[in-house]
């Protein structure tokens, strides 16, 4: 067995020089310090993304992306296909855990100022990946074509419609017409399984290539230490094995969640039925949804919704461009404002999410 393995290795090495690649991978070291634990969340997000790709492809084997059959095909998956309930439940749960993991990864990078020079592009691609993840969640939510999904999409796209100037045409583009209909489902299906995965993969490759090329970022305090005082661990295989162990744990958590709390389906979307009482967006949109409720209907001459969207839009752009306006951190100086902004954002998100849940 070992002999065959060595032979294959040598054969490949002669032709494509794997030694080089392995040396390149072997050069990456993971810094060890009191905040090392946060390094794992990028990997966990990656793992959950892989799970989404695999379970997503599996679901495609039975799912039918049209208003007439979408709901029924998921019913079929949940009740007739062997382990169909498991695959769909894993897909739903992994989506939620993925967003959660991305949130943690993003905020840990933010607080550690890992976006500072020279890693601006890693941050920008990362935030774009985060936005895409939300878009994945929003588009995937409609695909079961049930009442909740139908109204969530109506509300969501309607909010988009209130953006000045580009809102209305964008809404019609997203909906494939004036209203949410089967045309919307077809579009969201296309976004969810073709457009977004393509974009995501491209950005992800750039993101990962940058991480590999530049190595792991160290917190400012650690960076200032003398080389002799720094502790590191080789990425390959030491850190990777720890990564894999954590992935195994995540997979187990997923399995437990999927088995004990399988995904629900609800009632089929009915274009003529009134909105159900318990209508709420997915938890990761809840804080924005809640905020819109608290903004007065008119501030000066601006509509409440428009104001809300403008605020979130500006917030999003500022967030995307953090490395370019936080000049202090790039110079190795302390910038407390960043800490305060981060803490404010977290408290804001958590508080409004909780209010959204109990109200």
């Amino acid at each position, binding site marked *: 067995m070992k002999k065959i393995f060595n032979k294959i*290795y040598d054969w490949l090495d002669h032709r494509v020089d794997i030694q080089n690649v392995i040396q390149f991978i072997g050069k990456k070291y993971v810094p060890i310090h009191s905040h090392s634990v946060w390094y794992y969340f990028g990997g966990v997000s990656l793992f959950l993304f892989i799970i989404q790709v695999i379970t997503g492809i*599996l679901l495609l*084997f039975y799912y039918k992306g049209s208003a007439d059959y979408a709901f029924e095909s998921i019913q079929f998956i949940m009740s*007739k*296909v062997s*382990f*169909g309930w498991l695959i769909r439940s894993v897909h739903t749960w992994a989506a939620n855990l993925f967003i959660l993991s991305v949130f943690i990864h993003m905020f840990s990078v933010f607080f550690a100022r890992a976006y500072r020079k020279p890693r601006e592009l890693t941050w920008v691609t990362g935030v774009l990946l985060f936005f895409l993840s939300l878009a994945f969640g929003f588009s995937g939510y409609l695909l079961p074509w049930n009442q909740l999904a139908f109204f969530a999409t109506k509300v969501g796209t309607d909010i988009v419609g209130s953006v000045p100037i580009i809102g209305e045409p964008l809404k019609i583009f997203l909906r494939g017409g004036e209203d949410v209909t089967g045309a919307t489902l077809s579009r969201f299906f296309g976004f969810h399984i073709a457009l977004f995965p393509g974009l995501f993969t491209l950005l992800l490759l750039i993101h990962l290539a940058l991480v590999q090329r530049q190595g792991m970022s160290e917190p400012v305090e650690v960076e200032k230490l003398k080389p002799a005082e720094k502790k590191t661990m080789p990425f390959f295989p030491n850190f990777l094995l720890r990564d894999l162990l954590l992935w*195994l744990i995540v997979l187990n958590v997923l399995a437990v969640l999927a088995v004990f709390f399988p995904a629900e389906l609800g009632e089929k979307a009915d274009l003529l039925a009134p909105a159900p009482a318990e209508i709420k967006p997915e938890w990761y949109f809840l804080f924005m949804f809640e905020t819109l409720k608290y903004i007065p209907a008119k501030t000066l001459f601006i509509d409440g919704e428009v104001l809300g969207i403008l605020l979130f839009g500006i917030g999003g752009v500022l967030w995307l461009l953090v490395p370019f306006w936080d000049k202090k951190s790039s110079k190795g100086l302390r910038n407390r404002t960043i800490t305060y902004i981060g803490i404010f954002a977290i408290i804001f998100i958590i508080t409004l999410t909780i209010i959204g849940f109990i109200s």
Partner: protein
Amino acid sequence: MSEFLSGVKNEKKELNTRRGFIKWLLGFGLTGFCASVFYPVVMYLKPPDQREIEVSSVSAGSLSDFEVESSKIIRFGNKPVLVIKTEDNDFRAFSAICTHLDCTVQYRNDFGVIWCACHNGKFDLNGRNISGPPPRPLDPYLVAIKDDEVIISKKD
């Protein structure tokens, strides 16, 4: 480097040692784990049995729908059935699935045969394969006329 890829450098016969036992245990656990992941996936890929819609008879329309030497393909459960009215006002019905490679056949009144366009297979009006690649005759169906209606049913 290839030593690294293939595992521990100086691998001895370790089966009887504690390390060997732990290795075996790990391998066993890993195998079990992989099996519990892949079993559902493999089972999922296997399409579930969809019961065919059980149909015993189907109407092909009224007598007046058929001209002499004309035909119609109707749905019989999930399968297409070819109904032909011959020149002597006789009704025939056959499975429209070519016995060669599953194409759907058609009635050609210009040649008086049932013809499969895919590989030029020909059947006569009794469903017998007369030329081309089809290996056996088309499966026949029963035709009954009931109050001006043409009823097709299965022949058992």
